[in-house]
């Protein structure tokens, strides 16, 4: 009887240990909720999700690459590149007579297609030319920055169709208490009437893609192979997996997500700039590591990475609301990051 109780205790501790990031997130949220009035509200939670959307996407991008044992330093500037391209395209299409919606959709599609190119190049460099991912993606970072600056010529894009901003900042569902529910369209109400907003469009958009790729990662053969490559690349290739193709695909997935992030950025802020994503790179990588993935590859899940993103996003929003200088964020993220890796040594079963 004693051993059973002891074993259950051990298991409970082990489960907490393995999922400490989630526990940490809850505690963190609780901390801010207690200290700041109004923190634990739907509005704030949505704000956290809204401001963190780009990082969610970049972190997912990094996750795929990191699982294979690589790293993608270019995602920040691919994001910027995507903002520049999509914003310019929207302006061009809108002025050529396309309907605003048409312009937006066409621009998005074209940007996503073009956004695959940096990933393709990264993948070929890493897989075929055996350039270390750090160098290859750092080079791509420079190239994207250069091309973005060239296209922008120092002038940020203007005159984008306002519809972009409406969609980008809008919500999926609006509830006017007592009146009714509205889908996608913000109800016209008199001033002072309360409108409850549910789930920003941007977040929905991002989560759909993230969910799809999370499914791919966990439930498809492709996902299995990605983990295998990260775990033991020789074993994977001897088992018949086309390692080169998979690596190229993974980097293309990464730049795809970075482009998505760029598009969302444009929809949110109605502008495009080359360094839009520069600061988000480190947040994305930190989120992946805090979420438990190993830098050596072979482990990590989308869900855990999202939790990692939330830890950072909550921290940032919480600090801002407390009026604390946001540079504390860097210190705290740095500490959490290091702490995560040290913890991983004691609970090494952070695998899938």
């Amino acid at each position, binding site marked *: 009887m004693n051993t059973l109780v002891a074993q259950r205790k051990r298991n409970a501790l082990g489960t907490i240990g393995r999922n400490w990031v989630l526990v940490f997130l809850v505690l963190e949220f609780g901390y801010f909720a207690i200290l700041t009035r109004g923190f634990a509200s739907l509005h704030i939670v949505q704000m956290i999700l809204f401001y963190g959307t780009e990082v969610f996407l970049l972190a997912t991008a990094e996750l795929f690459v990191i699982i294979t044992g690589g790293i993608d330093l270019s995602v920040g500037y691919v994001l910027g590149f995507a903002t520049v391209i999509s914003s310019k395209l929207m302006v061009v299409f809108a002025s050529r007579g396309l309907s605003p919606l048409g312009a937006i959709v066409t621009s998005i599609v074209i940007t996503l297609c073009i956004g695959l190119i940096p990933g393709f190049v990264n993948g070929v460099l890493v897989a075929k030319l055996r350039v270390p991912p750090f160098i290859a993606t*750092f080079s791509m970072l*420079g190239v994207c920055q250069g091309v973005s*600056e060239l296209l922008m010529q120092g002038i940020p894009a203007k005159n984008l169709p306002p519809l972009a901003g409406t969609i980008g900042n809008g919500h999926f569902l609006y509830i006017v208490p007592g009146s009714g529910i509205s889908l996608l369209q913000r109800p016209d109400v008199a001033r002072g009437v309360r409108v409850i907003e549910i789930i920003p469009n941007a977040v929905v958009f991002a989560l759909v893609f993230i969910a799809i790729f999370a499914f791919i990662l966990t439930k498809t053969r492709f996902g299995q192979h990605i983990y295998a490559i990260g775990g033991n690349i020789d074993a994977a290739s001897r088992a018949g997996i086309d390692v080169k193709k998979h690596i190229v695909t993974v980097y293309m997935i990464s730049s795809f997500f970075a482009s998505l992030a760029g598009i969302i950025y444009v929809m949110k802020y109605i502008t495009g700039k080359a360094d839009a994503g*520069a*600061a988000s790179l480190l947040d994305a990588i930190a989120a992946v590591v805090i979420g438990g993935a190993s830098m050596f590859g072979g482990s990590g899940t989308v869900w855990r990475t999202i939790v990692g993103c939330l830890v950072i996003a909550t921290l940032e929003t919480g600090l801002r609301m407390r009026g604390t200088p946001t*540079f504390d964020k*860097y*210190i705290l993220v740095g500490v959490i990051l290091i702490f995560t*890796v040290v913890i991983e040594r004691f609970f090494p079963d952070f695998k899938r």
Partner: protein
Amino acid sequence: MPRPHVQHDTDTPFVQSRTGKLLGRHWALFFLLGMMAIFAFTGPGFFEIVNFQNIIHLATISILLAVAETFVIITGGIDLSVGFVMGLSSTLAARVMVILGSTGIGEPALIALGALAGLLVAFIPGFISGTLVARFKVPPFIATLGMWGICNGITLHLCDGFLPIAGLPSVLPRLGNGYLFYIHKGQSFTLFRKPDYIPDERVRELIRLVPFSFILIAAVVLVFWYILHKSRFGQHTYAIGGNIDAAIRAGIDVDRHLIKIYMLSAFLAGLAGVFNVFQTGIGNYTTFSSMYELFAVAAVVIGGASLLGGKGRIVGSMVGVLVLAVLKNGLAISGVQPFVRYIAVGVLLTFAVIIDQLFPDLF
């Protein structure tokens, strides 16, 4: 990590020939010389002593950081925190000088103390990074990334926001940007300072030789070249990068060595930060987009080091820094748009690595 000797399909006779090896080993140098030749034509004023001195003077910080990264990268690690350790040292030194300034200590004393503070504080992140890597087995990428954030945060606190620290003694920029020799053609020759009869605005009429930064660079390069190539410490650094297990089993105290390496790297970053105060006259935090550390790493890789460890030379890293610095300067003088430079750096870097693959045996 050891690399087995694999016969690549790229092992053509050329690669194995002496010319091939010579070209492969020194491609960066050849590229540098070629670039300089081209810029001499496309850029008026490029091929002049004034410009060359300027290039090196502005590259001082990059040189110091590149020396730092050389040591770390040879051990197979990386130090992403150097940019922000630099900012930390810079702001701390400035703060100390400002604080001491209000106590009425003489200028030389407060400058010296401020500089000392900036240098000493750098050892702390270095020690922490080193301990994390050596004893806690944290991957260097993560450990130094974490320190990056921590240093950045602390620096910004010291700055009270995104404001550089001003109010420093005005003699500082003169020390940082001064030259050894000032020659007024046909008229005078002064050491250490411009002749008094020339006002500041006309200083460019003089021939100025040997910036003080040269002396700093020469001293640092000499000392660290010696350490890396002539001492047991340097030999052990290469050994750890080549095969860490072999080093452990040969009795080398790898943990302590790695801690020293990261402290060394942070010290040089601190030196860069303090020098920055002398160069600009204010205490600077490092911005996100400067990417000092990434460019330092790029310089070291272009100079022939491998991110896997075990390879790299001080001279090579110097060439790498010069390649990047001359590229920046030459393109600017030739009136080419900045974006070309970004693309060029990316291409160069990739090329460097491919060369490294082709010639794995070259030291």
